[in-house]
């Protein structure tokens, strides 16, 4: 059946901010869907609150709404745009949930909008455990034994069917404590009885334990003619019990016979039919008992997912794109396979390589977490690698992670490393838990002589994988490695660095040796068909097999280095910048080459660039590609810290880095060099110093005077950055952060307490400078800019100070010979402007600015790097728009409930949202809603502030009182407010007596918390409050300026929801005569 003609306009729902469990894979899928539907001539309307996405680029849809993804706001969009249909299957769980809400609220019916891709009953059947189980049982698909019980008698009866250990999971408990395991009858009785009591509906789910079973996922696509295909099978290396997002996985499945695999295939397709997924992609998860082969279905997701993004990148089959086309009526045999260009989408990809995905964790940012992996996802990003064998693939994946690993091998102890823990002996019991680096520990255990069977007994990781890891460990044995040929070592995925360590040579010496022996990477391609057909748009990976099957790309070409895995501090924003850089270079007629290893991203989509290398972004791998392709230039300023870290070495190796030179980037990073530049330009900055030893650090700090800001150099995202108030604290800090500094010095800055902060993004072509935006942070200095909400344009700064900011930006950009983007951070205190930082590269705020100001900064910057001049673009004044945009950070504290919720110089947010409107209050309100912060409209506010904030809190409290809130506070704050005529109830702190503030929050008696940090002594109290707030969804504001902003948002409570597309906002920006309007639509 061809394209549906009964619908003309489609609303695509995005996934919102990046959070743990829902990352930029939904930008990738949303972007594909938007392009696919636009290509078919539909009017595409799009909603997503996340400005850092490519999908919210104004070119991609006809109307793009950067608005909260809630029923209210989406109803307003529907009212305005009147779409015929909604596509809810490419925006993760957020979009599915919204679709259900729109249905339940009657909004779909009211406006006559239908869902395409998945219907409500199918979504509900797939999501409801009980309904799902019943449906599967009915068609003969095996599920875990057990069931829902409502009494002890029912539970006891189930014991006849199920063997211990047994999982007991109470239904609908608050905070979702998850399941507990009973190993014997007594435990079973206790857990069931407790569970029944804890469940508000007196229900527990009792199931056989699947811990240690093998885990698989199949990606299925079905069309409206009931054709179904399996795109990819994925096998988890980590067995059941660890969230699949936190598991290392491989594609295709490695240890299934054809008969086992075909049963899964049959069941996957039957599952889609039974649940009623009419069209599109779904993923179906299975567990297999390793001893009996018994296979059971775990769950299915009736939408594209993280795994489908991985499957798309692993096979070359663009699941989201195809799913979108199937949703509008096409069948699989009507759609082409874009990679081969000759065959159709109706087939199942065959792959002739091994794909490994490894998640990236940031546990060091959340010291309270145990680091043990479990059923709740904790990873913040992932890498994918491709090799011709599993060994090659996993080693490449390990070095792609950018956590200092050169392969599947624990970090070698650095010389003079103060942290002796790295050299410590392996504790085998540590292997029992999944952790971020268990695979490294397994390699270590093999080096120590442990057997496959021993490790299997502890980890339940399939022996096939263990055997492969053991082979790697075996090769690393001194004697063996000396005998192995370089080619053999490379075929096993060892990096030059690793080989260098084995042979006592440097990385570069190994490189030279390799070249001399002609051991060069062979590039092979991902072609969906295992070479059965010649491919038109394949992508490449390196291996050390015999035949290199590609030739360097023809013509003028530039390599863009991507940002690697997402992590806190370096996320989707940099992928956005890389993709924009590609567009910019294409505008100038360059061919583009992308190097990246992140499967979630748009940058690794197969048809974005002229050639994609799915490779680790390391010195060795990048240099190999550069030497092979011989590009005109390599761009390093868009992919965050990843390419910058290797820029110097690449330049030294003769790689033509274009744009701002590594020397300039260095000059800005080097405090000494930078300090002298600032002096010449007459720029104030906080006093600073550098220390390489503890004594140096102390003396520098004392000279500057406490409080100081301490941080290691060369670290993005404020990792390990702290405000230090005393010498004791400083000593403690230095001992803790030795791990991250690795020989780099520690930087000490004067800390400007209570200053306002500003962020500037600007462009420079070496001759002139264009200010992209000046943003004001809502939180005061001391909070990482990535975690701080910010406003564009600023709301509180003197004209004189603004002039100074612009002067410094301009002069500094020219002085640093910036060619491209520069980001500066300023503080404003007591009438004086201080420069805090200057980074001559793409920053986290570039996408936000681009969306707010209709200024594609990165796209222009890439063109500057290849010789374009700013004047060619006819850019408008940076502050000429008439709307106000607010960016708010989204924090992962709900995943780390033990963590302090107070913001600090160390970045902790995973994502961001944007609110845009004509007033600050409204924009802030939208941003808060999108960030999941429930701004209350009435009720009781709890206030507890430190002495410094006591005076300024009075006006906030007064405003809240006037808005109808009742006030409560701890004794100190309450008495302060009472004396100012603001009637405030006193409530106990934790430990002072009961009921205390935490009881109040838990009893829904407190609807808003304003709590500024009081120092280490009351930490316990504050953390308890924070946890209670997260549990109850109560907004907790931890800064005074944040509280002021919340007051403004509350004022907008009753105003009508107004939504405009960003295309609307942009058209109202001061009319510009720029070349940008002529830029071809990139969608």
């Amino acid at each position, binding site marked *: 059946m061809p394209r549906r003609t009964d619908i003309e306009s489609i609303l695509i729902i995005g996934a919102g901010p990046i959070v743990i469990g829902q990352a930029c894979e939904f930008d990738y899928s949303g972007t594909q869907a938007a392009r696919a539907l636009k290509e078919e001539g539909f009017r595409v309307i799009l909603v997503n609150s996340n400005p850092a996405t490519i999908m919210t680029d104004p070119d991609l849809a006809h109307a793009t709404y950067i608005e909260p993804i809630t029923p209210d706001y989406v109803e307003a969009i529907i009212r305005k745009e009147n779409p015929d249909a909604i596509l809810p299957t490419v925006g993760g769980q957020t979009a599915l949930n919204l679709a259900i809400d729109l249905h339940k609220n009657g909004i779909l019916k009211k406006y006559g909008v239908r869902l395409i891709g998945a219907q409500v009953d199918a979504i509900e059947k797939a999501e409801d455990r009980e309904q799902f189980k019943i449906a599967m049982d009915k068609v003969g698909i095996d599920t875990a034994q057990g069931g829902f019980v409502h009494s002890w008698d029912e539970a006891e009866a189930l014991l006849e069917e199920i063997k211990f250990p047994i999982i007991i999971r109470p239904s609908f408990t608050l905070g979702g404590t998850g399941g507990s395991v009973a190993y014997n009858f007594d435990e079973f009785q206790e857990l069931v009885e407790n569970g029944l009591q804890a469940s508000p509906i007196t229900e527990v789910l009792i199931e056989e334990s699947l811990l240690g079973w093998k885990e698989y996922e199949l990606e299925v696509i079905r069309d409206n003619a009931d054709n179904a295909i399996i795109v990819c099978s994925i096998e988890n290396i980590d067995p059941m019990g660890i969230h699949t997002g936190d598991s290392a996985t491989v594609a295709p499945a490695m240890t299934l*016979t054809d008969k086992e695999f075909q049963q899964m295939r049959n069941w996957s397709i039957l599952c889609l039919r039974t649940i009623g997924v009419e069209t599109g992609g779904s993923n179906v998860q299975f567990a297999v008992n390793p001893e009996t082969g018994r296979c059971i279905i775990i769950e299915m997701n009736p939408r594209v997912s993280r795994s489908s993004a991985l499957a798309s990148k692993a096979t070359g089959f663009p699941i989201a794109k195809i799913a979108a086309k199937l949703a509008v009526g096409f069948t699989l045999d009507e759609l082409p396979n874009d990679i081969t260009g000759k065959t159709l989408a109706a087939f199942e990809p065959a792959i002739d390589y091994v794909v490994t995905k490894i998640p990236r964790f940031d546990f060091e940012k959340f010291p309270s977490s145990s680091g043990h992996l479990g059923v709740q996802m904790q990873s913040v990003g992932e890498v994918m690698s491709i090799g011709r064998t599993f060994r090659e693939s996993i080693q490449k994946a390990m070095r792609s992670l950018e956590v200092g690993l050169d392969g599947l091998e624990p970090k070698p102890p650095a010389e003079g490393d103060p942290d002796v823990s790295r050299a410590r002996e392996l504790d085998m019991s540590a292997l029992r838990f999944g952790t971020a680096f268990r695979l490294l520990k397994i390699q270590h255990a093999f080096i120590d002589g442990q057997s496959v069977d021993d490790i299997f007994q502890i980890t339940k990781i399939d022996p*096939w994988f263990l055997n492969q890891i053991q082979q790697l460990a075996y090769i690393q044995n001194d004697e063996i490695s000396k005998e192995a040929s370089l080619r053999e070592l490379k075929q096993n995925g060892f990096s030059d660095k690793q080989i260098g360590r084995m042979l006592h040579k440097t990385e570069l010496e190994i490189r030279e040796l390799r070249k001399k022996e002609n051991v060069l990477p062979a590039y092979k391609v991902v072609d969906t068909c295992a070479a059965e057909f010649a491919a038109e748009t394949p992508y490449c990976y390196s291996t050390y*097999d015999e035949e290199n099957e590609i030739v360097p790309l023809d013509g003028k070409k530039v390599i863009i280095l991507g940002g690697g895995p997402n992590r806190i501090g370096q996320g989707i924003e940099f992928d956005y910048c890389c993709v924009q850089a590609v567009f910019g270079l294409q505008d100038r007629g360059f061919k583009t080459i992308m190097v990246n290893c992140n499967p979630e991203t748009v940058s690794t989509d197969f048809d974005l660039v002229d050639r994609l290398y799915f490779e680790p972004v390391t010195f060795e791998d990048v240099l190999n590609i550069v030497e092979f392709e011989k590009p005109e230039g390599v761009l390093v300023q868009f992919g965050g810290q990843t390419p910058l870290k290797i820029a110097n070495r690449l330049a030294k190796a003769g790689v033509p880095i274009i744009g701002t030179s590594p020397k300039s980037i260095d000059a800005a990073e080097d405090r000494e060099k930078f300090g002298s530049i600032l002096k010449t330009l007459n720029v104030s900055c906080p006093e600073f110093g550098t220390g390489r030893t503890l004594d140096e650090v102390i003396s520098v700090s004392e000279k500057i005077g406490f409080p100081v800001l301490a941080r290691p150099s060369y670290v993005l995202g404020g990792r390990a950055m702290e405000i230090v108030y005393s010498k004791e604290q400083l000593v403690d800090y230095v001992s803790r952060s030795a791990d991250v500094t690795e020989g780099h010095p520690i930087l000490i800055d004067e800390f400007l307490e209570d200053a306002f902060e500003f962020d500037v993004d600007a462009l420079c072509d070496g001759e002139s400078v264009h200010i992209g935006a000046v943003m004001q942070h809502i939180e005061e200095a001391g909070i990482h800019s990535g975690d701080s909400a910010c406003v564009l344009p600023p709301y509180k700064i003197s004209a004189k100070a603004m002039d100074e900011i612009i002067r410094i930006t301009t002069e500094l950009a020219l002085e640093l010979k910036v060619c491209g983007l520069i980001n500066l951070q300023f503080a404003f205190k007591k009438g004086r402007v201080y420069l805090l930082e200057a980074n001559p590269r793409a920053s986290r705020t570039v996408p936000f600015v681009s969306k707010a100001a209709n200024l594609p900064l990165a796209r222009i910057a890439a063109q500057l790097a290849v010789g374009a001049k700013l004047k060619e673009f006819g850019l408008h004044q940076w502050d000429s728009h008439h709307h106000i945009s607010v960016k708010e950070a989204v924090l992962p504290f709900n995943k780390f409930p033990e963590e302090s919720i107070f913001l600090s110089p160390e970045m902790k947010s995973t994502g961001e949202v944007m609110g845009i409107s004509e007033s600050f209050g409204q924009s802030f309100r939208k941003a808060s809603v999108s960030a999941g912060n429930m701004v209350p409209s009435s009720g009781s506010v709890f206030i507890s502030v430190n002495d410094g904030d006591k005076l300024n809190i009075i006006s906030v409290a007064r405003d809240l009182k006037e808005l109808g809130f009742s006030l409560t506070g701890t004794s100190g704050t309450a008495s302060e407010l009472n004396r100012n005529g603001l009637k405030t109830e006193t409530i106990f702190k934790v430990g002072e007596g009961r009921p205390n503030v935490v009881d109040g929050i838990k009893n829904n008696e407190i609807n808003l918390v304003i709590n500024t940090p009081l120092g280490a002594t009351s930490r316990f109290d504050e953390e308890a409050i924070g946890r209670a707030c997260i549990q109850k969804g109560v907004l907790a504001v931890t800064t005074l300026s944040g509280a002021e902003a919340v007051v403004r948002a509350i004022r907008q409570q009753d105003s009508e929801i107004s939504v405009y597309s960003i295309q609307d906002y942009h058209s109202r920006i001061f009319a510009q005569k720029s070349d940008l309007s002529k830029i071809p639509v990139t969608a």
Partner: protein
Amino acid sequence: MPKPAVLLLKDGRKFHGKSFGAEGETTGEVCFNTGMTGYQEILTDPSYCRQIVTMTSPHIGNYGVNDDDIESAQIQVAGFAVKEETVIPSNWQADRSVGYYLRDQGIVGIQGIDTRALTRHIRDKGAMNGIISTEDDDSKSLMKKLTKIPDMSGLDLAKDVSAKEKYDWSGNGDENQFKVAAIDFGIKYNILRLLEDHGCGITIFPANASSHDIMAFNPDGVFLSNGPGDPAAVTYGIKTVRELLGKKPIFGICLGHQILAIALGAKTFKLKFGHRGLNHPVKNLETNTIEITSQNHGFAVDLDSLPDGIIPTHLNLNDNTSEGIQSKEFPAFSVQYHPESSPGPHDSRYLFEKFIGMMQHDS
């Protein structure tokens, strides 16, 4: 450490690797299979007679071999070429490694070669003869041996792999609903298993059985099996089938499909490199739906040669070649692909029901 081994193709392309399975020398037509599972079924499929099979999947042997996943009594391939052998398999059913399995049956293989390069070579140049040797590394002498090997075109191999005598697959014929005569051109066990599951008692006839032999057995239906070689060379089989047309319902698979087509007046031709894999999309022209199919054939029925009496029923979506036909006049139909799968998807099992339906209708 395994001995060095070489694979030399007839056009001179040479691959150096290591011995896999038995040591020695073997020749055959080199072809590739893109299946990611099912190597044991592939090894034991008689259609691979005189062929050196290379798997595009790089790790072969992961789940070992077992006694259940066989498609005939022994390994049938002439040689086996892989990127990497898994020495220690891992699967609850595994009782041997694939290397042991090959050695045990004296099958010569090679590993450690760039199988993707080999696949691309065959894709571009066409399937061609090759030789694997662990004993001789001299291209000239290898080539000499290679030139003695006949080309696949014109080669009748069905008689080599067929049962020599008639035998019963399932004993208790009385309880079975249907009596099926299966002509064995190299039949896969799973076809027999599925026929049995559908209530058929099966007697297997040698490839050279005459129509008289078959009619004397008085079956409810005749099954034409898969098998190796050039269908046009199986003249005796074609004759038998021609004589059976209209007398009994006929169902053919693979070589059986080609033989039925020739018997009905169509022609066959050799494909450049064949279809071998588990992912081939086939369109059922009657229902307009797509089946993902298991395929293994080097020859195909020429669609342009179909006489009026043949209706094309199935089409390969990759290259629009014939995948199924039905006679207008007689109760006879066939498919080029493998609805019995093993290995491969189970999308096309309905064809066995169709055959049952035909026999029901006929009786």
